[in-house]
């Protein structure tokens, strides 16, 4: 069953290759994309079951024994993230059937999406720090091209900012990895964990930790490195932003949690005030930025930043409850946020604009669409029966247990701000009267509308169900956080020995 671990890499890669070979067959590319993401989700479910039954899995690429070869590892956390990747990929691919225009498809939209998924799956599975860098670059190259695809003027501006900032992050990451190898002589994450436990944590090791923290923070859009995200995420088509906001920044957070619980637990504890400060300020500045935006996509981009703060909060607190809360919140935010993005994409398609001022009155004609926007919006804000509430509750509880009252106050305050700006946006889109000089609404054909609405509906339902029945998912998150905080099982799975 160990070969199961390779499937999340093989499936998207093979699909991308097939897509490249059949460059002009768009229909084939579309079907292949849907099959691939569906298969990916199934594989992730199998992996999750396998990990629950047999504990953490590992496999050695090329049969080179760890720590010399490249190890792939799946624990509960990575299996959950893989499942989310598969489902998000599926939703976005279906949505793209209606949203991607023929020009984008002709330039290889579907194969690129698969390459992006390949990079994401690789980052979730790898147990080797340098391999992680390679997957990051795979992901970045695919995302650069997806951002610039279409070649509109404003898109170019966003792409340049994205390229520059992410390449700086890559350079920092590379320097950090090089220094870490110089100090420890290994790059296998489990091996690194053992080696670093034996060393005094003075001199270069905290510096390396800070370098890596900065590199991953840029990727995850954490304060003070978040500014590139709203500057570039508002330009490309909605389907592309959805997958970026759902997966790319979450990969940054995933890696932060993985590296700082496994390799640098000491630095996480000594650096707690810094991490918590960054978390609180990320929430606050994201929310304040969102309030000031007159445009829907920019508003949602700032909202993405704001939610990243909550995810980082769990890492800073470093208790089982906090990490479980973070993981739950991460899954919740992927579903709810993407439902918001996709619904606003439908709105933008129909009204031809995303300026809040020029929109309005949609409730009268499309009441269902209004509900589809409102439910995930309330979920993101953390209103009780929905999934966001439980994630925030766990984080707040963990914060109170660790006596971080200021941070808890910030988290709660930002929730109120989130509720304010999302409801304002909802009113602007659906409730207020349509401005007199607004353009007429484009009516979408039923099939296209279905292709756009069904994914959004599915994601909103996930958020609703996870909110009504949080118990099973939360238990999984708890297992994941226990595995993160007890390194022994991970190290044993990779190296075959206990420390």
């Amino acid at each position, binding site marked *: 069953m160990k070969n199961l671990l390779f499937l999340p890499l093989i499936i998207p890669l093979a699909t991308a290759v097939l897509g490249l070979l059949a460059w002009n067959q768009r229909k084939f590319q579309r079907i292949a994309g849907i099959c691939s993401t569906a298969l990916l989700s199934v594989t992730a479910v199998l992996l999750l079951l396998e990990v629950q039954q047999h504990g953490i899995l590992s496999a050695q690429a090329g049969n080179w024994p760890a720590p010399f070869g490249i190890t792939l590892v799946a624990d509960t956390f990575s299996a959950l993230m893989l499942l989310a990747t598969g489902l998000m990929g599926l939703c976005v691919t279906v949505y793209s059937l209606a949203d991607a225009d023929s020009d984008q498809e002709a330039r290889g939209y579907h194969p690129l999406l698969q390459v992006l998924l390949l990079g994401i799956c690789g980052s979730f599975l790898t147990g080797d720090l340098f391999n992680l860098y390679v997957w990051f670059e795979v992901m970045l190259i695919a995302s*650069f091209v997806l951002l610039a695809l279409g070649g509109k003027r404003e898109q*170019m501006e966003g792409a340049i900012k994205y390229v520059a900032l992410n*390449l700086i992050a890559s350079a920092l990451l590379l320097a950090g990895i090089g*220094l870490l190898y110089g100090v420890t002589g290994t790059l296998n994450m489990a091996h690194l964990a053992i080696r670093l436990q034996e060393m005094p944590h003075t001199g270069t090791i905290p510096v390396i930790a800070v370098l890596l923290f900065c590199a991953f923070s840029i990727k995850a859009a954490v304060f003070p490195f978040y500014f590139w995200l709203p500057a570039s995420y508002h330009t490309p088509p909605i389907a592309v932003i959805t997958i970026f906001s759902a997966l790319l920044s979450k990969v940054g957070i995933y890696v932060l949690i993985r590296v700082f619980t496994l390799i640098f637990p000491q630095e996480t504890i000594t650096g707690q005030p810094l991490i918590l400060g960054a978390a609180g300020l990320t929430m606050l500045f994201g929310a304040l930025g969102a309030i000031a935006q007159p445009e829907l996509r920019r508003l949602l981009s700032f909202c993405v930043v704001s939610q990243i703060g909550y995810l980082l909060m769990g890492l800073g607190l470093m208790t089982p409850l906090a990490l479980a809360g973070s993981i739950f919140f991460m899954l919740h935010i992927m579903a709810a946020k993407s439902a918001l993005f996709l619904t606003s994409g439908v709105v933008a398609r129909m009204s031809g604009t995303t300026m809040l001022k020029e929109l309005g009155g949609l409730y009268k004609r499309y009441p269902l669409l209004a509900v589809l926007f409102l439910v995930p919006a309330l979920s993101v804000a953390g209103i009780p029966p929905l999934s966001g509430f439980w994630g925030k509750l766990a984080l707040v509880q963990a914060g109170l247990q660790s006596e971080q009252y200021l941070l808890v106050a910030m988290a709660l305050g930002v929730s109120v701000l989130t509720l304010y700006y999302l409801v304002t946006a909802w009113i602007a889109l659906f409730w207020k009267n349509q401005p007199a000089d607004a353009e007429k609404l484009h009516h979408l054909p039923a099939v296209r509308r279905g292709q756009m609405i069904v994914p959004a509906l599915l994601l909103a339902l996930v958020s609703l169900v996870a909110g009504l029945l949080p118990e099973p998912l939360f238990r999984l998150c708890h297992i994941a956080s226990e595995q993160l905080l007890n390194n022994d099982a991970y190290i044993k799975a990779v190296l075959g020995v206990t420390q």
Partner: protein
Amino acid sequence: MESMLAVVIGGLYAAGMYLMVRRSIVKMIFGLALLGNAANLLIFTVGRLTRGRPPHVPADGVLSALPVADPVPQALILTAIVIGFGVQAFALVLIKRVYQTVGSDDQDVMVTENQGQEKLGQEEER
């Protein structure tokens, strides 16, 4: 040798950062390339410098007693160079496209004209 390389690496980082904050996107790409090279040289230096001892077993299978070079940093640098090559090539294509659509390589021009266009568009709609 290490200290000399350290100075070179520092110089590369400084030059790269300086170029990155210039307004011209061409210079920005050069800055990115320098940053990547600085990181590669850094890996090379922290991986211990050994002179004239290639890390492979000779055909007769006899290993010399002297220390040989560590192959891992070399493999890392090679991979990083290859990846850097790909990313920089993409960035070059991107700036060519930008230059074609915007007609300038100045980032300020790009941003202000975009805002100008947005305003213009709004006024037209009014």
